[in-house]
């Protein structure tokens, strides 16, 4: 079996030997290890985002009976790499009336909050950066920084479309966070733990998967998560027809790339969380655990892309009404029933 956790363990042991031979304190090894792991996570994020952007365009294309990108590389697989290079080479403009500091840090906040959440994702058996015992709560907490980043971006651009976009996304994220958290609580009640690896370990067989014991919870999570990452049918913050582009109107070059990057990183993140909580995580027969994890996660990503071409966009008032008047009571009922029968 091609499990990766042994490989990482062996590399660490090898490093430990080397450091004791050279007489360097192990503290520095820990520090070096953290740095290397951070770089690995960043590299993984970049690769998956590059792939997801290409995939999104291909899926969209085929759903509309066209091909999507075809010219660069085989079936256009080089397209996003070219796009990324173009974005990096572009002039990075800042509006003259913008709040310079806020304008600079907003994409950084959004990017870092997405990056930090990846620390608690169990990619496979033993493949988790740090299995915190507050795992899922940590992810919920750290992703709230996105709201601050979006509001900062909207406000500091000094543009009315940006402010409106920032407002809309903040209102939306805050509203949908409530049913999202409640749907996750159902799983936490059943598994009696917040740690991501323990949640995965509690669903070893397919009939133990929480999607079968928490079907309503899964649906609420999926809907709320799509709203959290501002995707169709909940893409009101960046509704092109109404707001030009939402909070990132004024952004160009590398700063725009960071927003874009964070958006797709969050797309994978919510799918990975759904996989972990409801679809048994990395559990699966025959194949190595991390391959199972990626199959399930990318399938959910595909489902979210599929939604994009299936449902029309909601209006602002419909969006809020749906969250507060339908999803929230449903989530509460689900939670109470789970509590009664668990």
């Amino acid at each position, binding site marked *: 079996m091609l499990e990766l956790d042994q490989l990482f363990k062996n590399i660490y042991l090898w490093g430990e030997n080397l450091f004791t031979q050279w007489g360097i304190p192990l503290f520095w090894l820990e520090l070096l290890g953290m740095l290397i792991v951070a770089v690995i996570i960043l590299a993984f994020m970049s690769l998956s985002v590059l792939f997801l952007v290409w995939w999104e365009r291909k899926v969209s294309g085929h759903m509309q009976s066209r091909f999507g990108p075809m010219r660069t590389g085989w079936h256009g697989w080089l397209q996003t790499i070219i796009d990324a290079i173009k974005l990096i080479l572009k002039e990075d403009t800042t509006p003259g009336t913008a709040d310079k500091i806020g304008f600079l840090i907003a994409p950084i906040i959004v990017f870092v909050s997405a990056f930090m959440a990846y620390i608690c994702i169990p990619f496979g058996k033993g493949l988790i950066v740090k299995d915190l015992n507050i795992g899922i709560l940590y992810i919920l907490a750290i992703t709230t920084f996105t709201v*601050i980043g979006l509001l900062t971006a909207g406000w500091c651009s000094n543009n009315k479309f940006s402010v409106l976009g920032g407002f809309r996304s903040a209102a939306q994220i*805050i509203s949908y966070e409530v049913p999202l958290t409640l749907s996750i609580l159902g799983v936490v009640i059943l598994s009696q733990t917040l740690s991501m690896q323990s949640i995965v370990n509690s669903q070893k067989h397919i009939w133990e998967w929480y999607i079968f014991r928490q079907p309503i919870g899964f649906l609420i999570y999926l809907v709320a998560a799509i709203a959290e990452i501002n995707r169709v049918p909940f893409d009101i913050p960046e509704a092109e027809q109404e707001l030009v582009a939402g909070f990132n109107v004024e952004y160009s070059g590398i700063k725009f790339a960071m927003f874009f990057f964070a958006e797709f990183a969050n797309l994978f993140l919510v799918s990975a969380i759904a996989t972990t909580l409801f679809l048994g995580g990395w559990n699966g027969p025959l194949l190595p655990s991390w391959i199972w994890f990626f199959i399930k996660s990318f399938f959910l990503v595909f489902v979210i892309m599929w939604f994009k071409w299936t449902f029309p966009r909601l209006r602002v008032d419909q969006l809020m009404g749906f969250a507060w008047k339908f999803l929230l009571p449903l989530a509460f009922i689900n939670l109470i029933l789970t509590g009664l029968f668990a």
Partner: protein
Amino acid sequence: MENGTQTAVFYILSGLIVGSAFMVVSLKNIFHSALFLVLCFFSVAGIYILLSAEFVAAVQVLIYVGAITVLLIFAIMLTAQLYSPSIRQSNEQVIPGIIIVGTLLIVTLSVLRRTSWRISTQGIEGQSTVSIGKSLLTTYVLPFEVVSLVLIAALIGAIIIARRE
């Protein structure tokens, strides 16, 4: 972690807390104040983690950064003219202010000095989340319920005030 590292981290976090809190009250641009408030809350969460109270730290970030500061920023954005540089952050009541804050400081310091802090040498068994949950539903169930009642009352009050009729 080694003791030295812990102390260093503690002083860095304390510096961040005090520095950002000072920036919150002294900056002219009120939006920047709100951003420094986020940094302040986040550093406090860091202190909680240093005390191995991860649950409290996560809740601190979730509620103070995710809800309260966002609400503050909303208020800032919706208030017309609040962003203009002509708005002043201070008023003329400097001397009463100093007196009140000075008294508060002396009272707090004397309380801090007189309290004999119980330092327990044994850690919490298992996870802090589990013990917090257990004590909230056994020992402290009455205060817990009272707090939830107060919160519901506040919620209903807010809705009634916000209603148009």
